[in-house]
């Protein structure tokens, strides 16, 4: 894979102890001193989902064609939000890695690759809990075939690749141009509404639907939502733009990193 070589694998193995404790540390740090503890993982998405259900629930219910279940929109929405939160959490964690760990990088010489791996793991764990909850609910309340849930792993993989490559690009650029830290939230907001996450694509004008396949986030979210609602699962063609995008951005990130590594260390 891009940017992946034997060196990285051995480095990761050498620092496996550090990786594991960093993951544990990330979690304890997040919930240390919070009374709610691990329940807080559910709290924010639950509020978010409740708001969308109340505001858009009735409006969009009929647009989920061919789905009868009264929970259809809620399931559609929850899946979208949970994956979206995973994607943005990971992206934002990755893009801040270099600057936030400046102290560490200035002090000790250790492979930078360790840090994104830690973030990927913590974001994934954060995704797993609410996602397991959704899957459990779907299995209990509808008759979706269990094989559909394999698609969620593909979605997770693709979204991770997207977030990692985009995040790394931003992370490198941010060392030189701090503007990106301020601009990313706006860009993410835009992406959020440009992708059918909380609304089904049917509500959009036809010409916009035609443009959708060019959005690299379209295929992952459509696949996830189709899988849990037992709708038609998009074919491989739907993924073309996603795959091209990942390849280009990952190559870009790799190239940027190779070229600017020394300069980055000089600039933190």
């Amino acid at each position, binding site marked *: 894979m891009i940017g992946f070589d034997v060196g990285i694998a051995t480095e990761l193995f*050498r*620092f496996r*102890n*550090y990786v594991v*404790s*960093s993951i544990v*540390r990330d979690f304890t*740090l997040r919930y*240390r001193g919070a009374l709610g503890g691990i329940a807080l993982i559910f709290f924010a998405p639950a509020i978010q989902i409740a708001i969308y259900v109340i505001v858009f629930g009735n409006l969009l219910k009929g647009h989920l064609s061919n789905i009868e279940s009264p929970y259809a929109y809620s399931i559609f929405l929850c899946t979208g939000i949970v994956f979206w939160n995973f994607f943005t959490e990971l992206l934002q964690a990755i893009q801040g890695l270099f600057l936030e760990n400046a*102290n*560490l*990088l*200035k*002090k*000790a*010489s*250790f492979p930078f690759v360790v840090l994104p791996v830690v973030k990927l793991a913590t974001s994934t764990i954060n995704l797993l809990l609410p996602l397991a909850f959704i899957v459990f609910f779907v299995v209990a309340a509808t008759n979706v075939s269990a094989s559909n849930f394999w698609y969620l792993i593909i979605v997770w993989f693709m979204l991770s690749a997207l977030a990692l490559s985009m995040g790394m690009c931003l992370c490198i650029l941010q060392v*030189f*141009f*701090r503007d990106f830290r301020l601009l990313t939230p706006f860009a993410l907001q835009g992406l959020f509404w440009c992708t059918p996450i909380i609304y089904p694509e049917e509500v959009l004008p036809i010409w916009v639907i035609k443009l959708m396949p060019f959005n690299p986030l379209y295929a992952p979210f459509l696949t996830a939502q189709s899988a849990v609602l037992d709708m038609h699962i998009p074919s491989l063609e739907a993924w073309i733009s996603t795959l091209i995008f990942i390849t280009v951005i990952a190559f870009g990130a790799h190239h940027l990193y190779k070229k600017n*590594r*020394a*300069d980055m*260390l*000089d600039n933190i």
Partner: protein
Amino acid sequence: MNTPAISVIELSKHFKQYSRPLDRLLELIPGSRTRHKLHRVLQGLSFDIAKGESVGLIGRNGAGKSTLLKLLTGTLLPSSGIMKIEGRVTALLELGMGFHPEFSGYENVLMAGQLQGMSRDEINSKMDEIIAFAEIGEAISQPVRVYSSGMMVRLAFAVATAIQPDVLIVDEALAVGDSYFQHKCFRRIREFRDKNVTLIFVSHDPLAIKSLCDRAILIEGGYVAMDGAPSQVLDYYNALIAVTKDELALHEEHIITNDSLGSVRSGSGEVRFESVSVSGLAAEGTQFSESDRLELVIVVLVNKRVDDLTIGFMIKDRLGNEVFGTNTHHMGLSEKLDSLVEGSRLKLKLKIDPLGLGEGSYNITVAAHALDSHLAKNYDWLDQAVTIDVGRSNFPRFAGVVRLPVTAEIVDPL
């Protein structure tokens, strides 16, 4: 001793400096001109360090010592050149910076150890030793944010040196904590040295270099200026930092640039120092011995007629202790200085014969003010206007800063 522990060939490091961030962006446009200045810190260093050798790095501030250490540690990457290091490197650069304030000392020790590639069991087996060395006791289970800075450094040092490295890199930043702990740190460094650990040590303290290292490398202007026995290199270095006549001009420029800060030169400006220099009968440049005569020549320009002009000087030692000072008021020259008219120049020659100072480096601060103290009106004040070095003389030796008129006689056995 056949393969060197560290081998550096033509190592260079330069930093790109952009006057504004936009320039960096513009430079990305293909075919655009270079918009950065290169700040060359190291320019082609080459040296080998054998296994078990202890090497002291010396050089002025900004000579590139720290950059070299960071390159050797791997926290910076060289711009060109080759660098080979054999074995495990431990660097004591900025101690404790990687600690996380919310976590306990124990958890931080674990993380720091794992960052060095140790396993949990390895660290746990060393934990008691670490806690004992850091003398931190029960506080190990407290979050690091409640630690004093001394505790933090002690713990960081204890973790960093818990396992014996092959190469130990020590920056003088280590000179923190109380002297008791410093001694302890040096003892441990010495232990490592005796166990054939290669040591690279940066310090401005000649005594530390002489006692700890078998070799010294002087870095000046990004080059290896000298490489040899510590005493030799230190002598050369001392001669280098003694300000020569040529450099006085530069020095003054430096003082003027500091004007805005008001820290080095201050005063209302009615009277300005035009030049301050030293010369001696037997001495060359700023190198003196105790028996030499020192002449301090001060030229002042009177920009505006002032009453009760007094010119004074103060000799301070390397650490800033005041050794001796006096002024024209105390020496009974007040009346002659009173009659100076606007625009006139005055050359004042002060003689100290013999100089009478002990070996070491001293600097002279001069001031022009009203009446007998600079508290009244301060016209011009030049901190560290000249630096002089006092070496050995043919007078009988003594310890300390200044000779006192001592005599000794032996009274017949009682």
